[in-house]
């Protein structure tokens, strides 16, 4: 223990959101958990970061490790504030980025417009070179052409250069040589070659990913540099761990090269937190629901594993790379209720945000929102919103709900509010169906973890619609994403597209590829100080029936790579089982094809111990209030969460309030407090 005797094992997570920066500090020695909030102003993020950090009861220099979820990359893309990117492509293919895939997702829309390319045409230059799908070189790289293209783009104002050649996943030599040449010729320019980020096929999606990375990289690097410099000045000399979309963290220098990996930083934190808590509570199958002000984000943990996908999109622009599979819909506390052209009630996706916010905020919002509906039904206390930091206006909420919804539809204000919540709950229910039923999974087999500012308000109702019988509301649910980042491991993924028949004659080749991918990933993780025995390696093959296009990921255990371990028959079994589960059919003996090989290296960070809830005194309701639950107002007990005792049971109808959120226990549900202070809500009888 250091001589100072202060907080030797203190971890801090800093999660930057749209309105607030959330801080969670955990003193592992005492189990003390401190939460803090600081407004997030994009112009002076580093300043706000340090200000919030400074308010925590610890010297910055004595924090053991800082974990950071950042929105810098995603905001740069959403607000289109990145640098001028030049793109170098294979001759004949400079328009791939702009042509995209040419579909018309709104099939009847005469005016449909595909997403605009971030790189204008004059900033896309071509170079003679060609590699075939099997990696053979059809035409050598024109090195003089590379230099000429780079010169041209820089003259035209490129601040960063992306390189995307056809089939570079199969042979990276041309791209890497071109990147080398450009870096040598233009040392001040950031350069990303597509194969440095991803070795997967589909040229548009790969180029899009590369361009986005290049677009955000200089700004991101500046931010991280600034942050680290300031932290060093305050005596913090350990790495800053940045949250990635894949649920692991990477060190700041790696994130500065590949900021595209941090896009889903915030939502990923909540899922990681849920996974850690679920492991502690012994829940293998969990639906993670993050209810924010504008969106409802759902992810899934099955058999202890977080489900992922290999591609995502931001503002219509695709990004390849392993990401926690988060389905996001526009439904949250700020979502606006409105009447559509058919005279039907709708909720969202438009949101009132924090300004003007719900009508009840009294900041000029004239449209009724989900939060207004909760207030009108008595579920929120107008005097105690955000720990009494804000007063809500019941009259303003009622006026908005009456004029915009109730009167046009001929409903009472309460009926309109109940309808608003019912519609929002349905949207949330469909988001949950999208991650469960569409994968052949039954939501009834899952426990729901509900967090975010609105997690407790919707938890039981949505669980009821999905027939989920048990809900967990963790401690400090509004800060849960930050809390989750505290328990993230270091994580590196390596992927290679290599289409081949899955048959015995290719076994050695497959093993070689997987081993070499693991080696690449291990080299990365080694830079963070993890080596040898401390690393955990997992493998996966993406397999399909020969002739199909879509693949199914099949996990491969490291032991299967040994000769004689039956790698191929085990993979076949895994694939056919999954295909049958997903689609209801699957032949055991049909030809299989391998498409992607994946390896993941995890450098485990010692997970924090969960602090225990020590309150032994059973709480009494603070008051009894009228709350609407479908059938009109009923007397409902209102509790303070901090006052609840370990093991205390609270039967519905009840409402539990805390600083940043409110939890509703409908009639027919029972709330219990576990030893960690989580609120476990279960259905105690059949729902009406």
């Amino acid at each position, binding site marked *: 223990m250091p001589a100072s005797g202060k907080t030797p094992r203190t971890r801090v997570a800093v999660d930057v959101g749209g309105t607030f920066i959330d801080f969670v500090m955990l003193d592992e020695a005492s189990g003390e958990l401190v939460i803090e909030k600081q407004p997030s102003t994009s112009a002076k993020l580093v300043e706000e970061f340090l200000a919030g950090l400074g308010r925590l009861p610890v010297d910055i220099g004595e924090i053991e490790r800082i974990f950071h979820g950042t929105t810098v990359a995603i905001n740069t893309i959403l607000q289109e504030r990145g640098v001028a990117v030049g793109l170098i492509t294979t001759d004949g*293919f400079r*328009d791939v980025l702009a*042509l995209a895939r040419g579909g018309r997702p709104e*099939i009847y829309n005469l*005016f449909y417009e595909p997403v605009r390319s971030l790189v*204008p045409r004059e900033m896309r230059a071509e170079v003679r070179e060609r590699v075939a799908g099997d990696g053979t070189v059809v035409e050598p790289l024109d090195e003089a052409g590379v230099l000429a293209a780079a010169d041209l783009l820089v003259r035209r104002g490129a601040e960063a250069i992306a390189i995307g050649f056809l089939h570079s996943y199969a042979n990276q030599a041309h791209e890497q040589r071109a990147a080398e040449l450009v870096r040598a010729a233009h040392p001040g320019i950031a350069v990303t070659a597509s194969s440095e980020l991803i070795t997967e096929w589909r040229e548009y999606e790969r180029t899009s990913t590369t361009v986005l990375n290049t677009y955000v990289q200089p700004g991101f690097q500046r931010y991280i540099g600034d942050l680290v410099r300031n932290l060093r000045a305050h005596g913090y000399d350990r790495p800053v761990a940045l949250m990635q979309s894949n649920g692991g963290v990477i060190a700041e220098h790696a994130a500065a090269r590949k900021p595209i990996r941090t896009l889903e930083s915030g939502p990923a934190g909540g899922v990681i937190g849920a996974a850690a808590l679920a492991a502690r509570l012994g829940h293998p199958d969990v639906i993670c629901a993050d209810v924010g002000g504008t969106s409802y984000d759902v992810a899934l943990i099955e058999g202890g594993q977080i489900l992922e996908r290999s591609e995502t999109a931001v503002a219509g622009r695709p990004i390849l790379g392993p990401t926690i599979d988060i389905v996001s819909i526009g439904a949250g506390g700020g979502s606006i209720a409105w009447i559509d052209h*058919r005279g039907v009630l709708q909720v969202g996706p438009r949101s009132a945000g924090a300004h003007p916010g719900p009508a009840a905020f009294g900041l000029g919002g004239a449209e009724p929102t989900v939060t207004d509906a909760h207030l009108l039904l008595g579920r929120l206390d107008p005097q105690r919103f955000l720990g009494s930091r804000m007063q809500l206006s019941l009259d303003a909420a009622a006026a908005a709900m009456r004029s915009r919804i109730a009167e046009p539809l001929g409903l009472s204000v309460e009926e309109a509010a109940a309808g608003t919540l*019912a*519609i929002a709950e349905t949207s949330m229910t469909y988001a949950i169906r999208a991650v469960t039923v569409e994968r052949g999974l039954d939501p009834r087999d899952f426990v729901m973890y509900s967090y975010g500012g609105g997690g407790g308000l919707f938890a039981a109702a949505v669980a009821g619609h999905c027939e989920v019988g048990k809900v967990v509301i963790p401690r400090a649910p509004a800060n849960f994403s930050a809390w989750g980042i505290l328990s993230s491991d270091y994580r590196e993924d390596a992927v290679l597209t290599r289409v081949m028949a899955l048959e015995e004659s290719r076994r050695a080749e497959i093993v070689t590829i997987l081993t070499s991918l693991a080696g690449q990933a291990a080299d990365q993780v080694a830079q963070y100080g993890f080596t040898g025995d401390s690393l955990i390696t997992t493998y996966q093959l993406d397999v399909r029936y020969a002739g*199909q296009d879509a693949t199914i990921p099949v996990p491969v255990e490291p032991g299967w790579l040994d000769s004689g371990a039956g790698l191929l028959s085990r993979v076949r079994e895994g694939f056919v089982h999954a295909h049958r589960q997903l689609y209801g059919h699957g032949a055991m003996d049909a030809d299989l094809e391998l498409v992607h090989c994946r390896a993941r290296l995890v450098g485990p960070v010692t997970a924090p111990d969960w602090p225990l809830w020590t309150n032994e005194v059973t709480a009494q309701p603070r008051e009894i209030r009228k709350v609407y639950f479908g059938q009109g107002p009923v007397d409902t007990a209102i509790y303070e969460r901090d006052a609840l005792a370990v093991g205390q049971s609270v039967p519905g109808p009840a409402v539990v309030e805390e600083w940043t959120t409110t939890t509703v226990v409908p009639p027919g549900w029972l709330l219990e407090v576990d030893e960690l202070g989580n609120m476990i809500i279960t259905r105690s009888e059949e729902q009406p």
Partner: protein
Amino acid sequence: MNGPDKIDVVTAEIVRNGMTSAALEMARTLRLTAYNPLLFESQDFGLGIVSPGGEMWGEAPGVAAFIGCLGDTIRTGVAELGLEAFHEDDVLIVNDPYLSGTHISDTTIYRPIFHAGRLVAFSSATAHWADIGGKEPGGWCRDSTSIYQEGVCFNHLKLVSRGERNTELFKLIAANVRFPGLVMGDLEAKLASTRQGVLRVQALCAKYGADVAAASMAFVIERTDAAVRRKIAEIPDGSYGAAMSLDSDGVVENDPVRLAVTLRVDGDRMTASFDGTSPSRTGPINLNPIVAASSVRIALKALTMPTDPTNAGHFRALDFDITPGTALTAQRPAPCDSYGYSVVTVVELCVQALAKAVPDWCPAGGSQLTGIVLSRSDPRDGTPFIFSDPVDCGTGGRPHGDGAVLNVMGNGDVPTTPVEIVETRYPVRIERFEYAPHVAGAGRYRGGAGVRRDYRILEEGLNLNVMVENTVDVMGRGAHGGRPGKPARVVVHPGTDREIVVTRHNSAHRLRAGDAFTATTSGGGGLGDPFERDPTDVLRDVRGELLSAEDAETTYGVRVRRDAEAWFVDEESTTALRAADAR
């Protein structure tokens, strides 16, 4: 909440979302399990939930022309077999174009959905099969003269009866198609997809009751219809017509096929007729009345409520006043395999007709289908395969912006297959894929560009079929002073002494290793006078090498000049040029 009429507003919305979500799950299952790239990459399918009366309850994005036929397909099935013929766990198959719409390659698989022993709806999926056993590999016969040449015909047959597979029928199919691996794989995918639809609707019924579900959809359809009628009422009353000629019917040369549409608006209803259309033709560009109606529905939806999830209410305000026996109302056994050109034309004609009444709702002329089909069906030449590459093309200039480069309207959400996947799957290399800017029609808002795709053949024994139409009467007509776009152009053996410029959609070629061809798709028409185009938009096109400095001056009256790397508008000369033109 109390009173059934009050519950309806919310419950109806929940049920409507449930139907759409069921269709989306069907689409996802089909895409993920299909074997034919036309399904998983190009999404050449249409599917949804349909009431026993043939009313569309929910659909997923796919090919719009298919979706408009799903209701009629169920209607002809129920008419032919009677409702009592359907049992739990039945699966039916139909592809007779005169019963199900489009052409014989588009095979519909559908299942009755039972809840508590009662038939409540059908789950139906139409998809293009890799082959259907007609005279042309992969279907889409260029020159058939009767439906009997176009493939094996199914007329509402039970593929599965009360859960029992009709194995004889499966064997018959496998024996009659050229790519049985693909076709039978896709058939399994459609069985899985329609099964998903059944399960989802059953779950909805279990929760809300079949009666409430049906009543909710009736309510939604009624409300939708009312909204569509309000929109139609905004169109000034009158008759609006447009006509266009296809180059040929695929068989008879030098005899263009005239297609004509008249839309009569009377208050809040609209009546479509095809008077002035050529009589039913010898070659296979005919439409039957089911798909002709579907084509008009696409246009109506596009013009009134394009982004709303589709249900039967979107089409209820539309009546038809048609005479049988024209190229748009053909009767059995008239051939109809390359029907797609006529569908695209009818959609386009509806838009061009209504542009006369509501110009702000309508873009300038768009594009006809262009595509290539490469195949090898004889195993003695090498591994059989079929590769259809529908190619994107320009859309018309819009009332407030330029046209885009997309798949043609009416063809739905049909994304282009990535070059890296094409080259991995098929013996072909794509040597160039880029904008073809010169085909775009000039205008205040110019048409979308076409694209150019260059192909080189890497193996022996390949057949090339070319889809190219409207090379004479160009679809991309200009509007309000805008110029027309240029038609598509496919050149086989370009730059050699064997060069062939393809001008007919019935063109077929035998190719060998090393041969090349290039496809350039059509551009959209311009909207508004090019001399009124914002000079900064002209500058952007010059900068992006989409427009030459000379064309900027002659076509748009904008003089641009270059200073080192920087292009700029010469304001003074531009003002002078434009003033001179005005005089």
